């Protein structure tokens, strides 16, 4: 049981911080309530606006060419933030129907976007015109030969997918399935990827339980650790949840995504006595 130490490097901000991504030199993270994507520059330790006016931005992820994608949950779409400062939409309709509220995403080496598409208790932005899908699944957005985006459904047994990750060999899809008021427990699932983005039956890697703090909330976000071990995310209760690290093959340190209003750095080399979370 290793001790974790956290160092606040940015914040606090209004509301919860959401998506986080490592660019190779800096950390991008999202202040959902403020509608901003910010950049923590590791060299200078300064924080600057990376993108303003990003309403209800949740998960973000980089593609193989450095493309930045984001889940604009309240707008029910996955977008790409282009280097010229513009923002373009990917695909929004599955079999002609608008998908749900994308929350987290990961991009594979082929540039396909795997994203969790749960329902949401919070209404979409603007007038309520469209109903949601009758399922909450993991979807893939991929480009056709003419470069237009299209959607495909990946999971058929999820009820509330919240976060996704791919194994280093991209043969396993990890899905954080949220619990529910009907007694469903939050789970960490592993789906074998078969063929062209189809998945087989899942294995439950961890089921979240109840302790003296109440029902454990489960996973909010996750990523792979350098040695291809999924960074589990267990320390999450009903009170002050701390969630998965989100570092895609960084050398070190590892960046921790939290639902606090700050962004913290976990340094594996200096496991000091102060432990705010344990694994």
């Amino acid at each position, binding site marked *: 049981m290793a001790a974790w130490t956290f160092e606040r490097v940015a914040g606090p901000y209004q509301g919860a911080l959401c998506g986080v991504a490592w660019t190779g030199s800096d950390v991008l993270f999202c202040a959902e309530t403020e509608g901003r994507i910010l950049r923590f520059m590791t060299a200078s330790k300064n924080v600057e606006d990376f993108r303003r006016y990003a309403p209800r931005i949740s998960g973000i992820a980089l593609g193989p060419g450095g493309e930045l994608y984001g889940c*604009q949950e309240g*707008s029910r779409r996955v977008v790409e933030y282009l280097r010229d400062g513009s*923002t373009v939409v990917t695909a*929004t309709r599955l079999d002609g129907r608008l998908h749900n509220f994308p929350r987290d995403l990961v991009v594979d080496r082929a540039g396909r976007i795997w994203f969790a598409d749960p329902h949401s208790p919070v209404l*979409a*932005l*603007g*007038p309520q*015109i*469209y109903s949601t899908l009758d399922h909450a699944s993991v979807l893939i957005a991929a480009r056709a030969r003419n470069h237009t985006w299209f959607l495909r459904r990946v999971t058929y047994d999820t009820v509330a997918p919240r976060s996704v990750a791919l194994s280093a060999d991209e043969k396993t899809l990890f899905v954080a399935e949220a619990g529910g008021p009907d007694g469903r427990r939050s789970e960490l699932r592993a789906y074998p990827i078969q063929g062209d983005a189809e998945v087989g039956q899942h294995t439950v890697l961890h089921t979240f339980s109840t302790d003296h703090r109440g029902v454990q909330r489960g996973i909010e976000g996750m990523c792979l650790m350098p040695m291809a071990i999924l960074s589990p995310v267990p320390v999450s209760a009903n009170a002050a949840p701390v969630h998965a690290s989100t570092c895609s093959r960084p050398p070190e340190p590892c960046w921790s995504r939290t639902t606090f209003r700050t962004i913290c750095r976990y340094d594996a080399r200096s496991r000091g006595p102060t432990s705010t979370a344990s694994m």
Partner: protein
Amino acid sequence: MDIEIHDAAIGKVFAPDATLARIVTGLEFGEGPVWDKRRQCLYFVDNIAGKLCRWTPGLGVEIVVSPTGHANGATLDREGRVIVAGWSSRTVWRFEHDGSLVTLASHFEGRKLNTPNDVIMRSDNSIYFTDSDGGLFIPAMDGEDLQRYLDFSGVYRIPADGGEPQLVIRDLAFPNGLAFSPDESLLYVSDTWQKDIWVYEVQADGGVRNGRQFYKLHGHEPGHADGLKVDTQGNVYSTGPLGVHVVSPGGKLLARIKVPEECTNMAWGGDDWRTLFITTFHSVYRTHALVSGVEVW
């Protein structure tokens, strides 16, 4: 027609036996109604479907322009050309008689507009439009570029001889519908986020001053401060909770007209300009008033 009466003066606006009829349905998001007195038809848009349509009594609906970039509010100029608040296209554009489209405004001080929402024309041929940012975040209204660049949602004026848009109001949260008083001395603008209507004095140079809250929307039923129109008596008509709110020139609520769907905008029209057309998410309705509306060119 079901009317929730707040002041007996509404009796001079609508007869007790006035009816509300649905004339078009099946839309994804109706908006932008404007009556063309030359063709005796109603233009309107299906915003999400990206269509500019024309409804002609006895003939029905035909599509005039598609795709439109999720066009929103519309009006006519003095030559009978449709002028459109382009919403997701982030422009104000004009539909020429030869079928071509001409961009009238796309940027302010070098930055892309947000998403032009509604548009009106003054008798001096200047054009006023609202530029809220809703088209940048509302689901299914995606344009080519979803990034916002301006730090405010303005109301602009395009001079009669064209040129760059001039910012006339910059401190509203979500400017949406707009309309002039019958003598064009006042400009009314609805603010969707603030759920109210503001009124401004129009100056000789086309600018405005002395803005003040004119009316705060009444009720908590579904409906928003969206479209805005005025009749020749100076009464102001706004979409809002329950349907259409009729407000006296002094800012007093006279009545709320109950409409079965959430309303988006209105237009006066018909032979005597006493027909009030109402667009909703999925339909177009009409009713008849005892007063005439302010004519469109």
